[in-house]
């Protein structure tokens, strides 16, 4: 992992949050290399012992937020609301869930009751 071109961008947070390192690394690579987001930055979220990723989806101007977690973790409702608070309450965040087989899935979380699109 240390030899990977993405490592320098994450070097300040990976050793700090060893338990979340795998999912952050995987989500970061997917966002940058596969989803091809632009203006990608890494935000330290001490309150939930990990870093988040911000950036812009291709051809958009709005900043989106990705909070990575591993399938093996156990979260809680409070954990999710804390993530919103630490990110200054954006309307939505993407939870990136990673698995040891390098799979990654994203789910959109919104605060409050947000009805589905027609």
């Amino acid at each position, binding site marked *: *992992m240390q030899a990977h071109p993405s490592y320098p961008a994450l070097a300040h947070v990976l050793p700090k949050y060893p338990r979340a390192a795998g999912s952050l690394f995987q989500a970061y690579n997917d966002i940058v290399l*596969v989803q091809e987001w632009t203006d990608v930055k890494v935000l330290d979220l001490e309150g939930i012992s990990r870093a988040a990723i911000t950036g812009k989806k291709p051809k958009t101007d709005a900043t989106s937020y990705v909070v990575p977690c591993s*399938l093996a973790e156990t979260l809680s409702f409070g954990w999710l609301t804390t993530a919103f608070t630490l990110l200054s309450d954006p309307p939505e965040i993407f939870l990136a869930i990673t698995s040891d*087989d*390098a*799979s990654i899935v994203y789910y959109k979380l919104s605060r409050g009751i947000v009805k589905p699109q027609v």
Partner: protein
Amino acid sequence: MSLIKPSGRKGPVSGKAAGRRNNNNQIYAHALPIVFSHPPPTRVRSLLGLLGFSLTKVEVPQCQGIFDEATRSVWVSSRNDSTLLWRRGFFGKGDLSRSEPSWLERQINARQAGGKRLTSEEMTSKRRAERKQFKIDRARAIAAVAAEAEAAFANEGRVIVPALSGPSIPSAATWKPAPRPTEPPDTPEDLEHLQLTLPEAFFLMWNLNCLTVEDPLTNELMSIQQIWIAFQAAHLSPPLFVSPRSTPELQFDNPFLINYIVYHHYRSLGWVVRGGIKFCVDYMLYKRGPVFNHAEFSVVVCPVYEDPADQEASSIDLHHSSPFAWSWLSTINRVNTQVFKTLILAYVTIPARSRVSLDVLDSPACLQYYSVREVTVRRFIPARMRD
């Protein structure tokens, strides 16, 4: 050779599809990385064959990987090795792709105008964008019809039922996307590796002896004994980025052991076993492999402590180790029946510390104290079971 016929979708196979299938039969001819190569037939060979001996060579490849503790995986960076492991038994997954590493190919395609050859990822994103546009178009048409009905009711008291289908509403069958512009060029450089889960890597090393694993801290090859401990430790202590590994306190409910047992069990029966996060289960079982058939079974691993006291004392929070709520079963069963998979609960018993000494965890000999058995889950619909 396989004794179980694939439950493949029947129906006329187009010439193109049949060609692809033949091609796949060649590309994916080997069920495992080891290959049996038969020397040309001779009289001696036939004689030996009659006696039960053979000169068939067993070729065992030597693939190389590097252990990555943070992602709890083994990375295979050589393109040759990753192709071999993927094609012979569908081991691993490209960390930037859905299955086989194809990131570089996608990058190159994107550079070429039009990208005539679309990878499956590209097909998908194209389809997805189209579907979204279709939904927008349809919603607009439905709203127009509803407003019309509303006006008729308000003005004339006529009750018109707003139809949700009809000539004015686009249907999935008739709607056509507008042509899309092509992607700008990009500079490719292969940043992808084939990622093996720890059970996959251990299976390849321990049983088939076709993988060697390097320690990223020392750049030395790890022995099978070191691997056995390191793979368990990856689930116990937070990954260490600088200091050398300490010897962890091994325990029977280590997730590596539980997952390995399930993985090995289904692999040893000939199934191709792959991760199931997308179907909210632990594993999917394929008869031959994902390029041939859809998965038949979805496996949820349910660890069972022989001694409930061990569970209470454990530092590990194993998912599904206590009976879950009916609504959860209902959820995962619904997700899987929607895609025609049968749900399997794979129960792994965890030996009681009062019965088996922790010392056995020093070697894979501990595996004999576990057991795995499955329970299939299906809905029962009384209205359809009357005769």
